[in-house]
């Protein structure tokens, strides 16, 4: 796994919004590498900039108002930022795909399921409509939809949430992309359906060797699905590393706090949950030092003044903290 080459690498990715009196930096220098066949979990709470990051990678942000900049977004040796809109459109859905949080609204309500899956096949693989439809039926079967002949003629509103998300996955994986970006793919679903969808993603990944960038707020989903994880806070990655090590011994106090504050099913009912005091700072109103300092129980004077950067800690782990835990 470690030796696999990076298929997608973002270097110093920044997304800002122009506001009166300056620019609000919602994503502030995010860098990561996604390797072939692996799942990288990008975890963060609301407002951490994780969704903006994902949209920025595919250049799906509307500009204006959003302003995207980076030292590079390398996809299979090409810099996505340098591509023309036409070349970018050729890549979307072919080499780089994305699935979204809301399977309810992400499908065109006036188009049959079949046509929506046919589209990328015709567009990118240049298949005839008939051949594309055969592929579509096969895809639907692969994502676990029983009776694909009927499903292709149905409209999104006739399917359940879980089925719609399966259709989204079929669309995204239709052209066997090397990278799939999944933005909160199971947040809108029930736990039993979430388990199905996560299992499906795992199975398809093993089969196709797709690299997955899994964006979620749910650490448990990361723990079950991802190989490596990057934790975002206030627009920056504060910690990254292999899943097992990070969950075993988190280095950043924020990661630690996050992990400890999850209510778990335990035999003995515990006392109070360890909580992270305070609130997430508003983007655009970030302090000079570490953004987490105000909520951190281990903060020292240094944390208020100087912003820590990601430092390698060995074992493929990095942390942006002046006082890392378990260090």
């Amino acid at each position, binding site marked *: 796994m470690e030796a696999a080459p990076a298929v997608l690498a973002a270097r110093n990715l920044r997304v800002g919004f122009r506001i009166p009196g300056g620019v609000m930096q919602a994503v502030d220098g995010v860098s990561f590498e996604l390797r072939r066949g692996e799942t990288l979990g990008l975890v963060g709470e609301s407002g951490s900039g994780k969704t903006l990051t994902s949209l920025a990678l595919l250049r799906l942000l509307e500009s204006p108002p959003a302003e995207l900049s980076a030292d590079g977004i390398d996809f299979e040796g090409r810099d996505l930022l340098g591509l023309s809109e036409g070349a970018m459109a050729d890549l979307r859905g072919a080499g780089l795909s994305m699935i979204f949080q809301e399977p309810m609204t992400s499908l065109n309500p006036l188009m049959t399921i079949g046509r929506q899956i046919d589209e990328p096949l015709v567009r990118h693989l240049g298949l005839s409509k008939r051949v594309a439809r055969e592929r579509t039926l096969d895809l639907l079967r692969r994502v676990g939809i029983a009776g694909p002949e009927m499903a292709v003629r149905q409209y999104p509103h006739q399917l359940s949430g879980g089925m719609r998300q399966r259709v989204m996955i079929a669309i995204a994986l239709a052209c066997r992309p090397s990278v799939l970006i999944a933005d909160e793919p199971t947040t809108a679903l*029930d736990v039993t359906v979430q388990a199905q969808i996560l299992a499906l993603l795992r199975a398809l990944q093993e089969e196709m060797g797709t690299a997955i960038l899994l964006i979620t707020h749910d650490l448990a989903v990361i723990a*079950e699905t991802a190989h490596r994880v990057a934790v975002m806070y206030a627009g920056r990655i504060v910690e990254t590393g292999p899943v097992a090590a990070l969950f075993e011994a988190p280095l950043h106090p924020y990661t630690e706090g996050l992990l400890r504050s999850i209510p778990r099913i335990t035999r003995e*009912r*515990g006392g109070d949950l360890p909580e992270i005091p305070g609130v997430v700072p508003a983007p655009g109103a970030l302090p000079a030092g570490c953004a987490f300092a105000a909520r951190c129980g281990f903060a020292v004077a240094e944390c208020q003044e100087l912003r820590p950067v990601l430092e390698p800690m060995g074992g493929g782990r990095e942390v942006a903290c002046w006082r890392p835990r378990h260090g």
Partner: protein
Amino acid sequence: MVEPLLRVEGMRTHFPIVSKLLRRQIGVVKAVDGVDLAVMPGEVLGIVGESGSGKTTVGKSILRLIEPTAGRVVFEGQDMIGLPAGEMFALRRKMQIVFQDPMSSLNPRMTIGRILAAPFEIHGVARGADLRGLVSDLLRLVGLPEEAAQRYPHEFSGGQRQRVGIARALALRPRLMIGDEPVSALDVSIQAQILNLLKRLQGELGLTYILISHNLGVVSHICDRVAVMYLGRVVESGPREAIFFDPKHPYTEALLAAVPLPEPGRRRVHAPLAGDVPSPANPPTGCAFHPRCPRAMGRCSVEAPMPVALAGGHVVACHLHGGRDGGARTGGSFWILFFKKEVVSFFEKKETKKLHPFLFRVERSVDGCSRMWDVAYCSRCRC
């Protein structure tokens, strides 16, 4: 025997499906279809279930925010269904609700001060300076600064808004509080703050909670007893330990198995439950769970199982538990005995006299399967 504070008997809440044109009724959504619940004073009851299970409708029907179609809701010994508006109004002081979405549950055009003054105004409790005093007391109670009264909901974060929602519910010092997914819209770090607050307030004010949630972790953290709902019915209910560590209904088992754990490497053993929750407008025949049930029998698709009381207030509605173990053992203390890592059985208190706590007898559990646990213990002496 202490009387329950709230008893729900045979509650049904059906919504007609009306055609848009001629307003004919063309079907019915059985959102709640025969639910029995009892909540003891000072107890926290959790209601869990997936979307479409009717858990939220149960909560709202208890408060008559949605009028139930049938059944009884007995609060402090008085049936609230059909109660005239005046008497209902008086009862409203004693039961309150906290909603899921802290944005939509606060009127965006009112200051926090006015939102919190509303309960006192409506019930004519106080006015003027007294009112301001009461509002600042409330703010202090939920850990908000007094200046918050002058500001509008959008100036606060989700967690702070939820504190306001809790403060409003507590304004009239209710005995019963229903939390309808009170922490589901919040980030994990904030969720912990609110859960701790709810727990603290329960202790301080002697509240009785009904906590409705789809998050089993949250429920296990603060509930004493749990009811699991599926398609408008309670399929299993019982003490927290029994539901989470000795579930009897295949649905409860599946639900527990589907919960992702924040511990890498502990992959699920079971295959995930197949299929989706069916539409409550068109529920399956017999046991509503049978199309997805890994252990469904011929009988399940025909006959809806009746709730059967097991030992220790554990009730399950499943044909797997219809037979020999059913019926007799309700209420009272009970023993759960384990041999090594296997659940052994339940025993009535008088039976336990014949058994030394350490002398475990092996007996296969009723449904023919055994469950794995790390520790053996008995519910009373924690041996």
